[in-house]
């Protein structure tokens, strides 16, 4: 379970990708993934917002994560 990281999320984790397959209990939903991130890297809890994209679409907390999904952490956007 690969997770893509951008912007400040990449700086917090120190990497542009993260493999969660090795976890004993990989997160099964977007909400669980957010919980895992905030637990492992408290800096995530200090951000203005934290979103997750599944297969390049914004995904609500209830969305299930399946093997093969493209998962991305979306910290507060600031284009323009």
């Amino acid at each position, binding site marked *: 379970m690969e997770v893509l990281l*951008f912007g400040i999320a990449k700086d917090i984790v120190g990497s542009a990708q993260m493999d969660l397959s090795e976890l004993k209990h990989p997160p099964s939903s977007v909400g669980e993934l957010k919980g895992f991130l905030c637990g492992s890297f408290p800096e995530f809890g200090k951000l203005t917002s934290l979103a997750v994209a599944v297969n*390049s679409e914004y995904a609500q907390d209830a969305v299930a994560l399946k093997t093969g999904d493209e998962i991305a952490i979306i*910290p*507060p956007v600031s284009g*323009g």
Partner: protein
Amino acid sequence: MEKPIIEIVDMIDTSQVYGELSHASSGGICVFVGSVREFTNNEEVVSLEFETYAKMAIKEMEKIAMEASNKWALHKIVVRHAVGVKNVQEPVVVVGASSAHRDDCFEACRFLIDTLKQKVPIWKKEVFKNKSVWVSAHP
């Protein structure tokens, strides 16, 4: 409406946008260009660094263009954002629309830039002399 022009690019050429938006049925074209400001809160900016999740950014920009074309009577739409290091005064984003009457292109242009800033996964780091900051990351 014709297919919108949606792009993530390394460099924005502001001289091409009118040709892209021009249309025989359009009486008006409205364009917004965002560029790097010299100062943020009185601190001198050295450069901005833009990063994107390109696949998703293109999808989100397409959705915004579609939403605009549903709300207003438009002929053409351009939504183009640059990535990489941008220096002061360089363009970083250009959005625009053409329409028969000017109300539509003005309102659509404003909507395009406002919604892009809210939804499109692009991140901007402000580089100052002694520090750098991911914009909007913290409250």
